[in-house]
């Protein structure tokens, strides 16, 4: 590899199966697409939805989505590095809490959306 992602002693590393490397890369890209979708949805919520009865309702709905997108983008890179390191050292892949965090985050936003919709547009 031309660019060691971990800055560790290359003598301890083995070149992993190329298919796993590609899979790790595609997983990173999939998480980034998720982040981009969250960001775009957050912006659309604040910019395109009608005003709600609740003051600042659009921001309450959109800003958590954008923050979740930012979090996903950062953790996707960390996860890629951790996976790469584990594969090169023939260790088990580390577990990521991001699936749980993402599920809870989207669930919370869904609850907010339900409350705003029940209260109705202004």
């Amino acid at each position, binding site marked *: *590899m031309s*660019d060691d*992602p971990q800055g560790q002693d290359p003598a301890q590393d083995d070149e992993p199966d190329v298919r796993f490397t590609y899979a790790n890369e595609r997983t*990173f890209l999939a998480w980034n697409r998720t982040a*981009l979708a969250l960001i775009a949805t957050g*912006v659309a919520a*604040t910019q395109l939805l009608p005003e709600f009865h609740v003051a600042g309702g659009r*921001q309450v709905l959109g800003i958590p989505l954008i923050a979740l997108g*930012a979090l996903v*983008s950062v953790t996707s890179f960390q996860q890629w590095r951790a996976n790469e390191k584990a594969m090169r050292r023939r260790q088990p892949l580390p577990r990521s809490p991001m699936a749980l965090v993402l599920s809870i985050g989207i669930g919370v936003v869904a609850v907010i959306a339900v409350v705003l919709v029940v209260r109705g547009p202004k």
Partner: protein
Amino acid sequence: MGADIPPGSAGRDPGSPDRVSDRVEVAETWDEGLAPQRTQMAWGRTGLAVAATLAVLSRRVWAVGGGLEVAALVLVAAGGLMWVFGMRMSRDLHLHMDPHGLVGSRAFALVSGGTLLLAAGASVFSVVLPH
């Protein structure tokens, strides 16, 4: 160990006589299959997602109201540029330097940083109320 492998040679041309290290012997058994094509398509899909996000974020380019919005547009432009450079770097590494798809942490850091900047710009746009 890695010094035995010239850039761009590992995993390709398994019959090459200058490949003597154990690492290369392992590499000769690899079958990439369709993984490179699938990864290339994943980059394409992600590029489309970036373009769509930039389109959503740029809809206020012609109606910039104040300093905060200008700052948000600068953040969005910087994020888009980081994505372009990250994707370009990954493509070059795929084509010329690293046949295994290890595009390197710098390309991935650029891509993640670009997404982060887009999120920052989106946050500013969302705090500044819509027109």
